[in-house]
């Protein structure tokens, strides 16, 4: 057997370090989904009627889909049937008292986030990052709120936005990802519990990174969060999300929706470090990550940039895209997706060019190790009226060991002859030669693999905010543990 495979196995056996469970009393709704459950969730959140109606409309549509085609079947992933009646759609830590400040958060939850490296006390560590922490179905804390409010920036939980800024939520909710978009987005629209909301007013450059940290804790619970970011004319915001979950034998469903809207000359940079529990080395357990993320570059000269590092989850199904509606708007997608053990990822992007002189860039780096299956799926569509559109796509796959797979499905639809399209793709294997070379230079097998993989991902990592680029590199090394010799 090659040493290649040997080391891969050693690395793969490394434990997931965020797999602990927090003992906390939860307020949950009964299993299963029907209109009563939707009403119950909405009531628990004291929602206005328009919100409940939107949920019900979504639920009815979903119930219809459930009976007809159900989940989309086109993705290159395999999993057993999901029993939607067994899922708990809402679970919130039981408040010990009414929350008015961070000091009143359950110390168990504070400790959980500390342990995850996300201190919620504002003075600590990432001084330049404001965090919204979501625990199971609800947001438990948002830091630096007052400081941001001075600039007119709204950064709060989605639930709070529904109550305090209904005009903004009503205007933009579903404007990028309509409730009918796809099976999972529709489900999310019916049951979403919380998430983050961000509004950056005209001409304001958000002075710090905004970040949401998602934590699934309760068993048999689905997490359905929803994020909405609106960048007004000439504004700028950089946003980052991270996520982890306990190790459990059973699969858990995570179906999120993220909508971004950028108006004239506005820029949104959205980064994700996804580290959901990936299941054990035999492929048991892990999060099913079915996510719909889309941005609308609505204004002239607007720009939306997605950067994702996907190392966790048993299954990843996500295609963060950009609708390039404004003239001269720019869409970017930088992705690293790693699948180890029995993880499966079908991920990529959609760039829809509508406005004139719109540009998009796609850089996708897929890494497969163990029995991992990694698929890039991308659509670049140039509409009839989109004169002068340009796209550059680079799509690279790296294989570690001989039991994994890499697949590429690039779709290109061009309806305007002035478009310029470039597509580059490569597949390579981490070679024994490379590993031996690095070992001869005193590096351990693990360090060697991690160095090779990090080099492979460099173009994506440099798009991440500094602090997180370092985290991402570390995370990649850990996720690869056991992978090469």
């Amino acid at each position, binding site marked *: 057997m090659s040493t290649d495979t040997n080391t891969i196995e050693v690395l793969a056996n490394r434990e997931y370090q965020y797999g602990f469970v927090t003992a906390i009393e939860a307020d949950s709704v009964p299993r299963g989904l029907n209109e009563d459950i939707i009403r119950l969730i909405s009531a628990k959140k004291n929602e206005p009627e328009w919100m409940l109606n939107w949920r019900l409309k979504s639920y009815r549509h979903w119930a219809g889909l459930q009976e007809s085609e159900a989940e989309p079947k086109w993705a290159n992933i395999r999993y057993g049937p999901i029993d939607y009646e067994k899922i708990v759609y809402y679970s919130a830590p039981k408040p010990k008292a009414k929350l008015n400040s961070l000091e009143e958060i359950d110390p168990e939850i504070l400790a959980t986030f500390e342990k995850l490296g996300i201190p919620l006390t504002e003075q600590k560590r990432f001084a330049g990052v404001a965090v919204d922490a979501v625990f199971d179905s609800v947001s438990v804390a948002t830091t630096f709120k007052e400081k941001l409010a001075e600039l007119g920036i709204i950064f709060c939980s989605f639930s709070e936005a529904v109550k305090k800024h209904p005009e903004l939520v009503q205007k933009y909710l579903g404007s990028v990802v309509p409730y009918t978009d796809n099976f999972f987005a529709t489900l999310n629209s019916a049951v979403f519990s919380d998430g983050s909301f961000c509004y950056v007013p005209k001409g304001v450059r958000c002075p710090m990174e905004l970040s949401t940290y998602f934590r699934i804790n309760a068993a048999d619970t689905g997490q359905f969060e929803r994020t909405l970011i609106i960048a007004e004319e000439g504004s700028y915001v950089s946003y980052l999300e991270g996520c982890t979950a306990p190790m459990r034998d059973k699969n858990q469903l995570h179906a999120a929706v993220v909508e971004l809207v950028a108006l004239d000359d506005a820029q949104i940079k959205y980064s994700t470090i996804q580290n959901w529990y990936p299941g054990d080395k035999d492929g048991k357990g892990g999060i099913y990550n079915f996510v719909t993320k889309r941005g609308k570059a609505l204004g002239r000269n607007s720009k939306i940039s997605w950067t994702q590092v996907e190392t966790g989850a048993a299954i990843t199904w996500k295609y963060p895209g950009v609708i390039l509606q404004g003239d001269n708007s720019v869409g970017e997608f930088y992705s690293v997706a790693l699948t180890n053990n029995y993880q499966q990822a079908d991920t990529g992007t959609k760039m829809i060019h509508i406005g004139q002189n719109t540009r998009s860039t796609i850089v996708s780096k897929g890494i497969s190790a163990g029995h991992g299956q990694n698929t890039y799926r991308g659509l670049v569509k140039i509409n009839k009226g989109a004169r002068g559109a340009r796209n550059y796509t680079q799509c690279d796959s790296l294989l570690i060991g001989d039991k994994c797979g890499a697949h590429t499905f690039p779709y290109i639809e061009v309806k305007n002859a002035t478009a310029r399209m470039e597509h580059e793709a490569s597949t390579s294997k981490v070679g024994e030669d490379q590993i*031996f070379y690095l*070992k001869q230079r005193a590096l351990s097998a693990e360090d060697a693999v991690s160095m090779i993989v*990090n*080099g492979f991902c460099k*173009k994506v990592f440099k798009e991440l905010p500094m602090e997180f680029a370092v985290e991402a590199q570390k995370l990649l090394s850990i996720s690869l543990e056991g992978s090469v010799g």
Partner: protein
Amino acid sequence: MLDIKNLHVQVGDREILKGIDLQVNAGEVHAVMGPNGSGKSTLALVLAGRETYEVISGEVTYDGNNLLEMVPEERACRGVFLAFQYPVEIPGVGNTYFLKAALNAIRKYRGLQELDAMEFLPLVREKMKLLEIDDQLLNRAVNEGFSGGEKKRNEIFQMAVLEPRLAILDETDSGLDIDALKIVAKGVNALRSPQRAIIVVTHYQRLLNYIVPDYVHVLVDGRIVKSGGKELALALEDQGYARVEAEIQSTTTAHF
């Protein structure tokens, strides 16, 4: 420092080294010469710990320890360096970053303080000057898009920075023009010291005009068939390997 006794090595079913004996002391430079396919590179790679080669019998001690029991990175940490015949590319990994990681891995193993960027840079600058390495080369990814000559020079540059105790140069001269050859030789000669040993594996005598060896060994078909001083290399250049091979076949007693 290095003691090789009756070393037999095979790849698959094919025996490539058929009983090598070689002793290298600190301060010495040994040249291992031989025709293509004689096993020169195999010897170099076995000493560095390449797993694809299987040692069937024999022993190799390095500073009194069993070298064959050590994993490649331990050998490197203890000062064994191989300048590769075909250095591989590591895309996206900066040369400087890589070299610093290598040096610090070695320092850590030896219980020395790891160097930070500020301490590392002056050291690198000094060695760059010695090997006439361009700044720009340092900022590129390891061997990525390097010409054959640049790759070889980069190997010697790495050697200069890592300062090994036992350096093995595997056909470092192949693919070098005469100017590059002189620069490489300068780098190697600067490393010569009473504490250090160097094994130069080469097909041609040319490099040995610039790196003058203390001993020359002729490897033919997996065996060292002749050893001598630097003049042996010149004789070989003159008469070719065929002559040596013929000589060996006629005198069966020519064993050391």
